């Protein structure tokens, strides 16, 4: 358990340009060396401990550079976990951070569980006894979290699909096993041609899932959230409040935000990609016209729209125009500026949208911002946001498991090609089943025995 090498992104997602991937374990060098191209093709296991190296992480299969990085090498035992540690500093934002992590996992690292670095630090004697309870708290927190994710995923389409794949696999396995354990009974044997076809079917389905995982916007880029509203309604203020730092220019001159701003926020672990659009309005200004057109595109492609209305002015044609645009989108309508005198006819808004899509806020009020965050999280968790093509937060873990399952099935096919017997084949199939099961968390053996007896009529 403590023997394998773990990896994880150790910076919170979406909070800055630089992301750090941390690896710990005995295989860190054999993992990093093949994918790191430094100046003199140096072997990182040979460098001095606690040194930093410039280079690139490459995708070996595609033979292309993923990101420009700084790699920090810290050798056991003088590290946090008392194991060899590598930290990869990426510069290319969240997309490349994730890509680098994927490479590392492909090379044999395992995605770390929450608190696992700390756990290792403890188990390896780095942290002293008094801190042990804190470690248990971390593990405990993890249990709660994984329980709730498991609940969420039960409703999700991914786990449903995984369930179907496992069912197909175990049916095939039960067939093979029943014939092995009851050689005298006339169980029709599947035959390798049929087995091959079924494995190929399952692989194709896994591939489709992996494809959606690749294009899966939510994991990689966060929930694409467009902030829309007429000029000076407070979009930038909202964005800043959510980011808790001044980045966009905030003025009271309409149209100051010419470009489309993108920022990431992280609400309880769910990444949101916030897009502040230039105010949408019919305009003669050429520069602004471009921005406005792009805004319409963004609304089209967004997973979620946050629309702002100004309570201190009455509804304009522009507001109604935008409301039409977002009619069929998942949305949260914010009635901003509760701190100013009310001029807006709220009834029209409440007639048009449902109660739970509307919040009255002041972007200047910290409590209100928290309410917004709470609502966004709730919308995501309850599956209101674009769930059908999304992959959940733990996506990378799923993806990892899917790839391993697929590899096992690949092994199964080569077992068939090599003309190896069923008992070898069943090793590969069992592995595939086990990897898929890591997503849903069930045991192999009991499932199989139950399946054999429910499906075949056997015994004296």
């Amino acid at each position, binding site marked *: *358990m403590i023997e394998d090498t773990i990896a994880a992104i150790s910076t919170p997602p979406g909070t800055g340009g630089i992301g750090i991937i941390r690896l710990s374990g005995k295989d860190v060098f054999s993992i990093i060396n093949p994918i790191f191209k430094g100046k003199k093709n140096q072997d990182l296991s040979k460098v001095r401990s606690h040194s930093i190296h410039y280079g690139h992480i490459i995708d070996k299969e595609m033979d292309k550079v993923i990101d420009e990085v700084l790699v920090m090498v810290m050798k056991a035992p003088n590290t946090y976990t008392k194991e060899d540690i590598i930290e990869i500093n990426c510069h290319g934002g969240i997309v490349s951070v994730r890509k680098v992590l994927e490479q590392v996992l492909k090379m044999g690292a395992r995605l770390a569980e929450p608190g696992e670095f700390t756990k290792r630090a403890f188990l390896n004697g780095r942290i002293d006894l008094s801190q042990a309870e804190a470690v*248990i708290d971390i593990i405990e927190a993890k249990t709660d979290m994984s329980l709730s994710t498991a609940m969420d995923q039960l409703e999700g389409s991914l786990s449903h699909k995984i369930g179907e794949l496992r069912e197909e696999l175990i049916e095939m396995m039960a067939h093979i*096993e029943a014939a*092995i*354990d009851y050689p005298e009974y006339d169980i029709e044997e599947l035959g390798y041609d049929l087995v091959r076809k079924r494995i190929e079917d399952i692989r194709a389905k896994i591939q489709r899932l992996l494809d959606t995982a690749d294009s899966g916007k939510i994991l990689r880029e966060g929930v694409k959230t467009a902030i829309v509203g007429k000029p000076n309604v407070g979009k930038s203020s909202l964005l800043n409040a959510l980011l808790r730092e001044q980045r966009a220019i905030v003025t009271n001159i309409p149209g100051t935000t010419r470009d489309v701003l993108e920022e990431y926020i992280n609400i309880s672990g769910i990444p949101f990609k916030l897009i502040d659009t230039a105010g949408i309005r019919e305009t003669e200004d050429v520069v602004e016209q471009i921005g406005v057109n792009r805004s319409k595109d963004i609304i089209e492609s967004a997973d979620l729209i946050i629309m702002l209305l100004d309570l201190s002015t009455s509804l304009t044609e522009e507001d109604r125009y935008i409301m039409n645009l977002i009619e069929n989108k998942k949305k949260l309508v914010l009635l901003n500026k509760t701190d100013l005198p009310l001029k807006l006819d709220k009834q029209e808004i409440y007639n048009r949208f449902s109660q739970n899509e509307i919040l009255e806020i002041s972007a200047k009020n910290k409590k209100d911002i928290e309410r917004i965050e709470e609502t966004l999280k709730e919308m995501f968790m309850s599956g209101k946001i674009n769930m059908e093509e999304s992959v959940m937060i733990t996506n990378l873990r799923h993806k990892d498991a899917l790839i391993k399952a697929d590899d096992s099935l690949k092994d199964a096919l080569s077992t068939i090609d090599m003309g190896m017997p069923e008992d070898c084949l069943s090793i590969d199939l069992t592995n595939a089943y086990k990897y898929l099961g890591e997503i849903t968390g069930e045991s192999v053996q009991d499932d199989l*025995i139950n399946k054999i*007896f429910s499906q075949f*009529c*056997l*015994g004296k």
Partner: protein
Amino acid sequence: MSYIASNIDVAVIGGGHAGCEAALATARLGLNTVLFAISLDSIAMMPCNPNIGGTSKGHLVREIDALGGEMGKNIDKTFIQSRMLNMGKGPAVHSLRAQADKYRYSKEMKKTLENTENLLIKQAEIVKIHVEDKKVKAVETANGAIYYCKAVIIATGTYLRACCFIGDTIEYTGPNGLKPANRLTECLKELGIELFRFKTGTPARVDRRTIDFSKMEEQPGDKKIIPFSFETDPKSIEREQISCWLTYTNEKTHQIIRDNLHRSALYGGKIEGVGPRYCPSIEDKVVRFADKERHQVFLEPEGEDTNEMYVQGMSSSLPEDVQLAMLRSLPGLENCEMMRTAYAIEYDCINPTQLRHTLEFKEIDGLFSAGQFNGSSGYEEAAAQGIVAGINAALKILGREPMIIDRSEGYIGVLIDDLVTKGTKEPYRMMTSRAEYRLLLRQDNADLRLTEKGYRAGLISKERYEKLIEKKRLIEEEIKRMKETVVGVVPSVQAFLEVHNSTPLRSGMPLSELIKRPELDYYKIKEIDPNRKELPEDVQEQVNIQLKYEGYIKRQLIQVEQFRKLENKLLKEDIDYHQIKGLRIEAAQKLQAIKPRSIGQASRVSGVSPADISVLLVYLEQMNRSKNINK
């Protein structure tokens, strides 16, 4: 009135397959042993199927043999047909099965017991186990004889409060109409042992003279006979074999069953015991698999000197008249006469999670148990537990370390670990699919896996052990030679490959790689391996298998390595799991009940999650540290 009969080391209760192996083990390890059986005529009786071995069970028998047990030798002496099953499949699932002459089997075993030093067999019913301070003190017979002893091994099989059902007839007897043991259960309850009630059954026997074999398919034995015991010389047991026969049920049979279902003890609700799924009655099969047009029925001889034929596939608790009608609807059995009626039997057994891996009760010092009493099913499963219980009872008395076989070492390990970790809700049958390291746990290498354990325990002679070491050496040497012998691109090799439809070589290749090709094997490439020495057959077999499946074997070995790491993290029995911060309540309760011996076993307890295991790891580390600090 009770009286003190004598002072012995070990008392074994029951003379079935578990009891025999247990008693032989303790006696052979030098301990004064008495085996008590309700009837000395039923020693090693086979009340159900007349065969030993089969898939996964054949593996168990060979493992028992490697440990120094008797079952393999006994069946080698008394078989009437032998087959290696699953030869069309890979080596992991090749399974040896022999039809036994069940009367001779039983007689031979009794003879062996009678001639074993330190062992006395006695006809008596044990009604009480005396326990003081949670420690076994003595056993007491129905006649009041008290035997003081250091260990007791319970192997009561299906005899405890046994009760048989034939349709609406209920008889309070053990198997085959033998006397049940009705009084021991009460004593076990008083000792605080948790009991289950299980059910099993056996089909009818018909008179060979009334069968028309011309309407059935013949199932002859193998030409080449492979013995069960690694010590039996194959030539010494060559003999003429007796065939089994195959026929099928049909729509008429199924109709008879459906019309009479209400008269079945099972469907009539008279049986409360839990029956095994792998041993369904014929009425069960017809009901649950209604779309199946026919079911196989095998007729197996019960011995050489008897006309009784066992009807495999027709277990039933239907009334006698229905059974006969059913049988007579089968091709070849139209005029058959039934000699024994099929019956279902219900009996008391224990929840096996009360046991350690040594098969000793966690709560009662010196009390061991084995076989069907532990919730298993089958002669081989019983014998396997018998020898483990026997060895461990002896080792304990002798003050030596226990012998535990883990899941990566043998089917026996899988069997016992499943029983004591997960428990069972139905009579537990061994299956190859229960063994996760199946490719390593082959029947052909049981000696390589377990002889050393048997030797260390003291049941394997030095001579046999040294022979094994020599065998290992020969295998390793030959494998090394095959890896180092490279054949080049020469005409003789290419011609050889062409003859075997194998791709010609482009460059030199070690022989060990050529063996991996599906169309080739170690035996075939002898032609292009001029330096080959003549090696014993069993060595050749190992070289062939170990090289041919090398990749898969390596993969499983890596899995085993990981498995071992958690098995080696031991947990003390006195841990109070409720006091461990961070464990979920469910996990703490389960762990408290099972008291796993290692983190590995804990991870297999149902209801214990990976997060709980992390908590346990942290706890263990904490304990180790505070121990170090206290030093």
